[in-house]
């Protein structure tokens, strides 16, 4: 199963009632922070070194956080639009007016459903159908 299969899939309740469309798939990245003062050019000196174009990118990727597994958290389901959020589910973004207001209005009622609440994914037909378990929980879509 791929993320592309799940995106734009039709979401149904156990009895077949249409709930909405999968607009995004959420993951939790395990991030390991770099230890402070690690290596010779740690601290503020490290910031200056990043400006040096001759330094290979790998030098400073090593000094930044490192990602581990990307755990599948759940699906973002919009009852109205299959379109993208454009990032406005992050509730503190208000500008440029009136784009966030319009996008939020189009996606009102959007919720996050845990992957554990997904009972079945039917990839055979078109569109793909995601069936939820009975008593699934509608969570906040905020990041």
């Amino acid at each position, binding site marked *: 199963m791929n993320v592309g299969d799940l995106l734009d899939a039709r979401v149904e309740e156990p009895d077949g009632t249409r709930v909405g469309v999968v607009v995004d798939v959420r993951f939790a990245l395990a991030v390991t922070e770099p230890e402070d003062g690690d290596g010779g050019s740690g601290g503020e000196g490290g910031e200056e070194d990043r400006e040096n174009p001759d330094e290979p990118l790998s030098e400073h990727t090593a000094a930044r956080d490192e990602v581990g597994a990307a755990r599948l958290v759940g699906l973002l389901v919009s009852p109205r639009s299959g379109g993208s959020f454009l990032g406005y589910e992050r509730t503190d973004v208000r500008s440029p007016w009136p784009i966030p207001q319009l996008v939020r209005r189009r996606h009102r009622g959007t919720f996050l459903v845990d992957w554990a609440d997904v009972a*079945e994914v039917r990839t055979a037909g078109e569109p793909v159908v995601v069936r939820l378990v009975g008593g699934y929980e509608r969570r906040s879509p905020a990041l």
Partner: protein
Amino acid sequence: MTRERLVDARLHLLSRQVLDADGEPVRAVDDLELTGPDGQEARPGEAAQVGAILVGPTLFTRLFGGAVPASRLPRIAWSDVAHVGTAIELSVRSDELDADWVELWLRDHVVGRLPGGRHDAEADG
């Protein structure tokens, strides 16, 4: 210190540029393969994670419809990913990846046979 950061596939991962350990662009993220903890295909409702970044020639399917079977798409193991930011940075060099096999094959079999094809223009300055 390890913590969790939430990312959304469409917002933060899909279509992002993939860079290798030297900062060289590899490909863009076309899709993400989901796997279970045992490395098998992800099952609904059970723990799942990203197993690989799928990269591939999707231009034709985008123009003419249809889909390339996921098993035929070149992949980059998620364990090779070092950092997720505006680009996705790998901890390996692109030469070590199968994802570039078309480019490597063309380099060895086509470009390398052209007169001057084995000459490194940047090295000679």
